[in-house]
């Protein structure tokens, strides 16, 4: 297969269809709109359904319904619209309906929203943050696989640079083995038999077929998220082995940090880059290990300081952890602003390295 020039949104849409996604619903809001438009263009050819919903709340509940019926389903928005979707995402996590949420965020200010969630109950949302279009293509298929495997809603944290950048990419079907049987799906086949299936957040069951009830049901779900936390964290560490300074960043910002680290290494500075590929589960142990020889950790994120909490939880008080980014949005309100450039980051990492050397 040869590479094609595709806009990020289009590449993600094609990858979702390769993954077997046959239901998509969304409400337009940039920079998510392009993904909705691509889905609308591509779904008819595979007998799939793409709905332009009347709101984000409607869209996410459509995805929940399609997921409950057994389809590989997805929805999406940017952080503002995902705020509206929180209730349905929490319900889906607690009643175990898999679907994918594509968060084409307006920058990096929705890290808390993506990793903590705003719904109710003891739930987590697995979240992958690609650094570029080709990784977004890969993550898309992985997310559908993980959603089904764990029967849970999962999320991609993208942004304008993922959604709107064109890249020469190959969109190929990835093999994650046989799909798990959906013997829980409400596909209508038991209608009228008196043995109809049920998907219910509180798991009370029916009078003639009682369920485990919320106590046992939610304990089991909490154990499931514990298991996911143990095995599903993903990360990338570059030049961390002998690094005195480790710079932590996520998503598209990490591509800039990687370049800064490569340039500063050429100048002889012992810096490394660490990137959580999964924002939840956050790769705590891997980060602690990557910082084993470091005397300081810098956190570059284009927000007021959100991921830095997870960095501190990972490495404790052993090494100073300093924020490097700040709030920075461009004139359109949709993209990261002036700080997301190689020179801005390079100057500040260099200064921080020198400061530590002086001490």
């Amino acid at each position, binding site marked *: 297969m*040869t*590479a*094609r*020039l595709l806009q990020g949104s289009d590449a993600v849409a094609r990858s979702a269809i390769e993954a077997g996604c046959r239901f998509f619903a969304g409400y337009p809001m940039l920079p998510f709109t392009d993904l909705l438009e691509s889905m609308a263009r591509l779904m008819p050819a595979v007998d799939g359904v793409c709905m332009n919903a009347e709101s984000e709340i409607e869209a996410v509940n459509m995805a929940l319904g399609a997921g409950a019926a057994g389809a590989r389903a997805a929805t999406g928005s940017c952080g503002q619209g995902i705020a509206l979707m929180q209730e349905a995402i929490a319900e889906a996590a607690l009643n175990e309906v898999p679907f994918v949420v594509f968060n084409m965020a307006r920058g990096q200010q929705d890290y808390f929203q993506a990793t903590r969630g705003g719904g109710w109950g003891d739930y987590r949302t697995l979240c992958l943050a690609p*650094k*570029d*279009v*080709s990784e977004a293509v890969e993550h898309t298929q992985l997310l559908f696989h993980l959603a089904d495997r764990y029967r849970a809603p999962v999320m991609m944290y993208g942004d304008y*640079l993922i959604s*709107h*950048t*064109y*890249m*020469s990419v190959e969109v190929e079907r990835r093999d994650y083995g046989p799909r798990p049987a959906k013997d829980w799906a409400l596909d209508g086949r038991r209608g009228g038999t008196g043995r109809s299936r049920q998907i219910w957040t509180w798991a009370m069951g029916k009078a003639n077929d009682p369920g485990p009830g919320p106590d046992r049901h939610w304990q089991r779900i909490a154990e499931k998220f514990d298991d996911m936390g143990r095995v599903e964290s993903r990360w990338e560490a570059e030049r961390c082995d002998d690094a005195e300074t480790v710079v932590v960043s996520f998503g*598209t910002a990490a*591509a*800039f940090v*990687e*370049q800064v680290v*490569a340039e500063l290494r050429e100048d002889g500075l012992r810096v490394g880059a660490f990137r959580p590929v999964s924002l939840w589960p956050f790769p705590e142990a891997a980060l602690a290990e990557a910082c084993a020889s470091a005397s300081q950790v810098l956190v570059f994120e284009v927000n007021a300081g959100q991921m830095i909490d997870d960095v501190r939880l990972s490495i404790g008080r052993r090494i100073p952890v300093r924020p490097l980014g700040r709030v920075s949005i461009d004139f*359109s309100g949709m993209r990261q602003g002036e700080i*997301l*450039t*190689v*020179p801005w980051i390079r100057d500040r990492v260099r200064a921080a390295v020198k400061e530590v050397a002086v001490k």
Partner: protein
Amino acid sequence: MQREVVLTGIGGQGVQLAAKTLAMAATAEGRQVMMSSHYGGEMRGGQTEASIIVSDDRLRPVPILESTWSAYVMHHRYWPGVAARLRPGGLAVVNSSVTGDELTAEGAEVVPVAAGDIAAGLGSPMAAGFVLLGAYVSVAGLARLESLVDAMKELVPPYRTQHLAINEAALRAGAQAGTEAGAARAGSEVGR
């Protein structure tokens, strides 16, 4: 080998279409390509810019360019911001029908091509963007003329096929003009 081009102009000049054509042509030739666009909500008259990175091997993907090896300049309004990013030894191919002959860039070569006049001479002033694109690749490389023609045909939507012939003529006339303007200068090995 990695080369960059920043395309600048004002909305309506076909800058984004030219960028997509070049990026698609370079992809078809088997290169690694990244293209990002920046433009305001206005369809016409506002700032429009695209940047393309072309590489023979693995691309280091940072979509906001700190500096660029070359520029494609349809209009001078946003030129200063581009000139500041142009590296010494680089090159800018400019639409002198609009910019005049006054544009300069420190340490970089400016190649004027009267793209607007050439397009008007072909009977389609709208095709000036393709004239300048033909000129750009004949000077800078990055993609072959025939690949541009194929990419343009793929990009033009079915309801605009009446423009295919004139667009192709514009690309070819531009390539000719670029060659005459002195293609032997700072051409890129990437496109050769």
